[in-house]
C-alpha cells in the first residue's frame, strides 16, 4: 500500500513537471502575430488593392 502511494505521488509530480514544460513551450508566437496584424491592417486600410494599383 505504501509502495502504491509512492508510485502515485511520483507520477503526479512527474505529470505536473511535464505540464509545466508544455506550458513554458507555448511561447507567444511573435512572427505569426505580426503576420496576422499585417493581414488585418491591410484589410482595414485596404492596402492590398492600393499596392496592386501602384504596381500597374
Amino acid at each position, binding site marked *: 500500500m505504501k509502495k502504491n502511494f509512492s508510485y502515485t505521488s511520483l507520477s503526479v509530480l512527474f505529470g505536473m513537471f511535464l505540464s509545466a514544460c*508544455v506550458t513554458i513551450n507555448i511561447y507567444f508566437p*511573435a512572427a505569426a*502575430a505580426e503576420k496576422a*496584424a499585417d493581414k488585418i491592417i491591410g484589410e*482595414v486600410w*485596404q492596402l492590398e488593392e492600393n499596392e496592386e494599383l501602384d504596381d500597374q
Partner: protein
Amino acid sequence: MNRAILYLFLMVLFFVPFVGYAGEANLEVNTPAITNLKQSMQARHAQLAANYENGAVGFTTDGLLAMRDASAVSLAQRQVVNSLISAENQDRNALYREIARANNHPEWEKEIRATFGQRWIKLAKSGWWYQSENGSWVQK
C-alpha cells in the same frame, strides 16, 4: 522499481505530441467576432484617414488612436472626430482581446496589442503622425 520507470517512460511518450504541437504557432484570426470588428473599422477608416492626413489624429504605442492636434479640425468637427476616435479605440481593444481569446490565450492580449501598435505605425502612410516611446509625436 522497473515498473515505475516504465510507467514514467510511457507518460513521457504520452506528452511528447503536445510539446511538439505547441511549437508550431499560427494565429487564428477568422472568427465571426473578429470579422465584424474588421468590417466596422474598415467602414470607419475613410473618415479617419482625413484626420490622419491633417495631423489631428495620431497612433499611440499601445495600438490605439489619440487626438494629437485638435486645432487641425474645426470646432464643430471636433466632437465628431472625438467620437470616431473613441469608437475606433473600442473596436481595437475588442480586436486585441478577441484575437487572444480566439487562440485560447487571453493572456496574450498585451503582446498582441504591442504587435499591432508597431504594425499600425509601420504600415501608416508618410505624413501620418505617431507617438514615440517617450510620448512625443513624430511625423512619418
